[in-house]
Each structure stands twice: as C-alpha cells, then as structure tokens.
C-alpha cells in the first residue's frame, strides 16, 4: 500500500516535471520571437507544419503525425493518428494543440512523450464545411469561419462568415461565448489581447479583445486584402495577394503600415 502511494506520488511528480519542462520549451510567446535562441520560428494561422520543442507536428487531410526531433537533422515518426475530416490548420498554445477543420475545432494536449491526446471536439452544425483557422491564449480560442469564396472548398452546404470566440478554460469543454459577423474572414492572429482578423476584401481588422463580449476595433486597413497574419510583438506580417505588408502596432493608438514586399502577378 505504502509503495503504491510513493509510486503514485513519484509518477505525479514526474508528470508535473514533464509538463512544466515541456511548457518551458514550448511556452512560446510571439513577443519573444525576435530572440535568436536557435529555437523554432513562428507560423501563420494556416500552418500545417509545427515544430514545438523536440517535436514536429504535421496535420494532413484527416490526421496528425508526430515526429521526434531528438536529432533535428533526422525526424523520426513516433505517432500517427486520425482526427477528422478536412483538417486545415494547427496552432499551439501552452502545451495544447488547436486544430481547425471543416467539421469542427479539435483540442489536443501534448503529453510528456510528445504525443498529442484528444481533449475535446467542438463540432459545427453539419453540413457547413467552413474553413477555419484558430488561435488561442489561456482563456479564449478565436476561430474564423468563412464560406464566401467560390473557388475555395468552403461552404459546400451553407454560408457562414463569422468570428467565434470560445472559452477554453476547461479544454475538455470548450464553450462558445460569442459570435461576430465578418465579411469573409480567413487568417487570424493574437498577441496578448490584440486580435488580428484577415477579412479578405473587407481588409485587415485589429481589435482590442480584452473583453470577448465587446471587441474594440483599433484599426481597419480597408485596402489590405488580408489573407493571413503573423503578429511578432511590435510588427505584424500580413499576407495579401498584392504584397506582404508589415504593420507596426507598437503603439496601439497609432497602428500603421511600415513597408511592403510586392507580389507580381
């Protein structure tokens, strides 16, 4: 009995250590990305490849693969599991993986061995099949759903263009808090409480999202046909069909374009 007790405590301790060291590796905030630490970089919200600590996660059309990067020059596949249909993107926050798909939002937790375990699934009302990148912090997940673009697979059966905010305090029970109508929202980015929504033809919208029930629009670049965004701390990289724009948001009262990299047709 006593041995069991000690063993259990040791196990709990090991798990805790595992989680905390894991979180150290991967507790990656966008504001720290500028530091050249030989670590990982930062991707947009449409990413399907994600390096976190010593692991590489790849989502494909219906599942997620885990590769060990113990030797970073030689990835070794250690896990392969099915998730659902039309998997589109993967986002990481604090040991949790948020996976956007045409059928719903999936939340997986990375275990100490690097392998993700499913914690929850929030299915959309079928049949919708929207396209939906997701970003998250400790409390909220922000999902964009869009179906407007005819050339995309989205919205096979219905039209839905909105930003949804979920309470994810309990990752096993994500709760839909509020929905905001959008024009044709695509990529989404988050830095602290600053939320970036790429609303395609309706431009790039930047919100103070401290209160999910009362988003305050800080800036609206109507001329940037934004598709995806990477917030880097003071600077946001914004992808659009004509340019990669760099937006300086170091002063939230004066968010402005800094430069652009042209894309030729």
């Amino acid at each position, binding site marked *: 009995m006593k041995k069991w007790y000690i063993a259990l405590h040791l196990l709990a301790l090991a798990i805790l250590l595992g989680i905390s060291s894991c979180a150290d590796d991967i507790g990656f905030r966008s504001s720290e990305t500028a530091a050249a630490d030989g670590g990982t970089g930062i991707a947009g919200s449409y990413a399907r490849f994600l390096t976190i600590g010593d692991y590489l996660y790849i989502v494909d059309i219906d599942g997620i693969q885990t590769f060990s990067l113990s030797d970073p020059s030689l990835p070794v*596949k250690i896990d392969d599991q099915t998730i659902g249909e039309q998997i589109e993107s993967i986002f990481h926050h604090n040991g949790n993986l948020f996976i956007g798909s045409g059928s719903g939002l999936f939340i997986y937790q990375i275990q100490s061995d690097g392998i993700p375990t499913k914690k929850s699934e929030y299915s959309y009302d079928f049949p919708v099949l929207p396209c939906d990148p997701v970003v998250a912090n400790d409390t909220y997940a922000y999902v964009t759903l869009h179906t407007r673009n005819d050339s995309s697979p989205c919205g096979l059966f219905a039209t839905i263009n909105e930003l949804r905010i979920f309470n994810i305090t309990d990752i096993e029970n994500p709760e839909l808090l509020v929905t905001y109508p959008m024009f044709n929202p695509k990529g989404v980015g988050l830095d602290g409480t600053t939320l970036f929504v790429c609303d395609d033809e309706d431009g790039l919208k930047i919100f103070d999202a401290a209160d999910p029930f009362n988003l305050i629009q800080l800036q609206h670049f109507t001329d940037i046909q934004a598709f995806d965004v990477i917030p880097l701390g003071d600077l946001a990289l914004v992808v659009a069909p004509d340019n990669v724009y760099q937006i300086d948001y170091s002063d939230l009262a004066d968010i402005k374009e800094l*430069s652009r990299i042209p894309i030729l047709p």
Partner: protein
Amino acid sequence: MKKNWFLLSLLFSICLFSCIDEEVNEDWSTNGMRPVYSNADWRVISDSEPQNIRELGKIYYKDGFIFVNERGQGIHIIDNNDPLTPTPVRFINIIGNYDISIKGNYLYADNVSDMVVLDISNINDIKMVNRVEDIYPATQQQFPQNYNGFFECVDPSKGTVIYWTNDILKNPKCQI
C-alpha cells in the same frame, strides 16, 4: 460523425463516377481547378538567386528572416532585419511545397509526398540533409485538396502536379 463519413464517401463515389468519360454533346465552361505540371525531377532540391513572388502561399518567420512559400514551387527567403527595407536573399526550389517549419538550423518542408530536411545555417549555401519519404498520400496528384467542385482530370504523362490553380475549364470531366 458517421453522417460526415457517409457524405464524404458519397462525394468520393460521385467523384469516381464522374471521372468516367461521358459523352458531352456540346461545349460548356465552368469555374474550377486546373493542375499545373512540372517535368523536372521533383526530388531535386536546389537554391537560386531571389525571384519575384508570384503565387503567394503561407509565410513563416524566424530570427529576422521571412520565409514566403511560392505555392507548389519553393521558398523565398527575405532578410527582414530592417523591416523598413525587406530584402529578398535566396529562393529554394522545392516542387510540391506548401508548408515549412524550422527548428534551430533545420528547415522542414513538404516536397510532393515527402518531407525534406534542409540545413539553413548558411543562408547562401542551403543543403538538403535528409528526406523522409511518403509522409502524405500523394492525393495532390489525383485531385485538389480541400476542394469541392469541377477540376481538370490529371494526366500523369504531363508530369508531376505541383499545384492547382483556379481557372475556367472547358468540358471538365472530373468533379469532387
């Protein structure tokens, strides 16, 4: 969920069914996806002088550099240490590439159905150090991913499908 699977399998059956040649009485056109082919050996990874961005894909950022995917064709490397004057420095040719991620000096990229590992410690001398085969089923070679609608049937004799582009199709015989 079961319903989803049923519907998906139904869609695929429709696809298979509609890929069978049918008699078309008169010409008609519609919006759809057309495969873009390459006859180059898709396994060859090379780097070259900077190129213009034409088919913008996803972006990735690390340590002052922006990595911009050229859909199905490779990666533009842009030096952004001075964000006022972003400067293209290199282009890596990777056929069938859409996604990348980086750890330390290693860049992981999809290359049609494989993943390649590139050593980027010297941006001016990027080397492929490894290839992991068959990480994806090569469905990209058969139909456009995450898409529903008409598409131009793939003709493997034309080469490897490097990406799909939206176009007006005449008498398309394939649909998903």
